[in-house]
């Protein structure tokens, strides 16, 4: 296995799928000649040319809508939002056109589009640039939502997302682009809708998605080292479709759970999972399902404080100790 950056894992996924299917086309601001604002599409314009890798103006509603329209005719656009935060200006195109045109046409149309880009706080770029939309988008029937935490997951899930015949909202993370992980040389795919138990444990389930899954892993190490608590870490990877079975299996084993995410708390993904758990595992739970989210305010700029606004390993340890 090669040790490569998360961004390069994505880059490999694009290249492989573009080789495989001439209808796959990459579009977005600065994705071509500039190699991508975060270099995720590095080298692809040189390799595949201007027809397959296209720079767009700063017109998210326009170009996302253009991609959706093209996907209705069988093109498979992979659209970059330089930040997922900018989805706000293309919101209508995403939630009405991509998500609902299949339904409104009684199944005559489908939109094999991937919309991707980083969705995270933690880089001191202020409130407008630090939104996490995954809870919103997963609320919308018709959309699929994926949040990989590692290079391995990013590549395998991206390849599945591109081949998927429904619109997939693919959420990356600028803080993870430079993280290295093991990625096999041979081709592999990871199905959407399969969680990954990133650490086996017996005492409590730390359930998370996106970068928070890595924070949970760090917390699990601390819990083991300092508190003799053996935590299991379940990384959802895909929010919709959701691997409820994996979550329930873990909690039925550990009887305790904490959900960790970088979303804001009100109606976050953690709310959905906690609500599901108390309903479907009521008698298995020895304590309430607790939740850790980003502190409930717009993302602060101040670098020292933004660190505190997002879930940290010690925040998780503290929550866990309150119920273990």
């Amino acid at each position, binding site marked *: 296995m090669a040790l490569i950056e998360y961004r390069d894992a994505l880059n490999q996924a694009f290249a492989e799928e573009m080789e495989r299917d001439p*209808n796959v*086309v990459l579009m977005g601001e600065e994705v071509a000649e500039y190699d991508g604002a975060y270099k995720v599409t590095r080298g692809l314009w040189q390799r595949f040319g201007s*027809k397959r890798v*296209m720079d*767009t*103006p700063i*017109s998210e*509603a*326009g*170009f*996302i*809508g*253009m*991609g*959706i*329209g*093209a*996907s*209705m*005719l*069988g*093109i498979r656009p992979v659209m970059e939002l330089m930040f997922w935060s900018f989805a706000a200006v293309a919101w*209508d*195109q995403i939630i*009405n*056109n991509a998500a609902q*045109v*299949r*339904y*409104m*046409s*009684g*199944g*005559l*149309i*489908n939109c*094999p589009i991937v919309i991707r880009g980083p969705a995270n706080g933690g880089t001191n770029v202020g409130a407008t640039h630090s939104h996490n939309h995954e809870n919103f988008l997963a609320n919308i*029937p*018709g959309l*699929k939502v994926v949040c990989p935490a590692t290079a391995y997951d990013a590549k395998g899930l991206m390849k*599945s997302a591109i081949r*998927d*015949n*429904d619109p997939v909202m693919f959420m990356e993370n600028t803080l993870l682009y430079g993280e290295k992980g093991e990625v096999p040389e041979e081709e592999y795919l990871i*199905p*959407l*809708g*399969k969680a990954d138990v990133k650490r086996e444990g017996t005492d409590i389930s730390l359930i998370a998605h996106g970068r928070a899954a890595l924070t949970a892993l760090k917390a699990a190490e601390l819990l083991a080292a300092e508190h003799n608590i053996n935590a299991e870490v379940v990384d959802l990877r*895909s929010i*919709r*479709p*959701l*691997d*409820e079975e994996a979550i329930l299996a873990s909690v039925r084993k550990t009887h305790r759970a904490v959900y960790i995410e970088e979303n804001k708390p009100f109606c976050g993904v953690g709310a*959905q999972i906690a609500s*599901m758990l108390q*309903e*479907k595992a009521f008698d298995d739970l020895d304590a309430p399902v607790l939740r850790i989210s980003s502190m409930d305010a717009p993302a602060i700029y101040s670098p020292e404080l933004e660190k505190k606004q997002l879930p940290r390993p010690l925040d998780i340890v503290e929550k866990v100790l309150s119920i273990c």
Partner: protein
Amino acid sequence: MASAAKAKQLDFAKTPINSKLSAQQKVRLLTEMVRIRRFETESLRQYQAKKMGGFLHLYNGQESVAVGCVSLMGDDDHVITAYRDHGHALAVGMTMNECMAELFGKVTGCSKGKGGSMHFFAPDKNYWGGHGIVAGQTPLGLGLAFALKYKGVKGAAMCFMGDGAVNQGCFYESLNMAALFDIPVIYIIENNGYSMGTSLARSSSFKSCLAERAEGFNIAWGQCNGTDIYEVRANVQTAIERAHNESKPTVLEIATYRYYGHSVADAKHTGGYRQKEEIENYKQNHDPIQIFKRRLLEEGTLTEEQYEQLDEAAKAEAATAAQFADESPIPSEESITQDVYFEVDRQTEAGRTGKHFFNS
């Protein structure tokens, strides 16, 4: 005025695209307009009989636009429009049955009763809807045309929109990209003078016309009158040729008029934001069906009897469609959660992995 207008009409009849029409083709154009009108009138009746819910936006008065434009479509030309979509649907060849059944919310509807009046679709006929969000279809139209170019097909996408829709920003984002990337999209502004209860002058600031806004994006644009279907065809043909031969966009504004309110619920459309005389004037002097009929009668292409016949046939077709719709079954309760995900509908491996629906 009258003779000038007539002179103009004659001109458009002489343009190659119109002069080469056979008698049969001319009658077909008229028939299509009449079919739309009869369908709309029947749907209004059925709406009043409470056979359907939601909105109903009628196309009466605007028939020459949809029929004129669609009559020029080749195999690789595509159409997309807004919520006032029945005319375009019938023009591309959708049946009255499937359209009426859709209005009734029946399983035999073109969208299985899921879309309703605003959301008719027939991808097999290059018809991509029927869209309820004002101007939301404008980037989609760009995307259809993009796909044609990407595939190397000589085609165009005609994207229809209202005069009110020009004030949604995504239209301008689309215009810029259409010009920048040389995309063969044709934006057709059906300017019927009103967006709901707001007249053109109260909704838009412009110079000579709305289409002129395309000038600043360096896009070819034009304006024409929708009264005469030949004028529509002549102007659209130019745009289609530009799309096919140069892969360039066009914005074309067509002056037209709607006889009914914005939707059936619009109580103020006569005597409120517009006066009865205005409507009557249009019906008397600008009705595209009457004007084209008169022309065909005058030139001997059609007899009054033939007209009666085709009109009766359209009426009967609409009545039959209403009966078909009425007798069709409503969709099953299970169907509510079908047609959401392609992969789930097909029960592929992706569709069977993980939970897709969350009613506990």
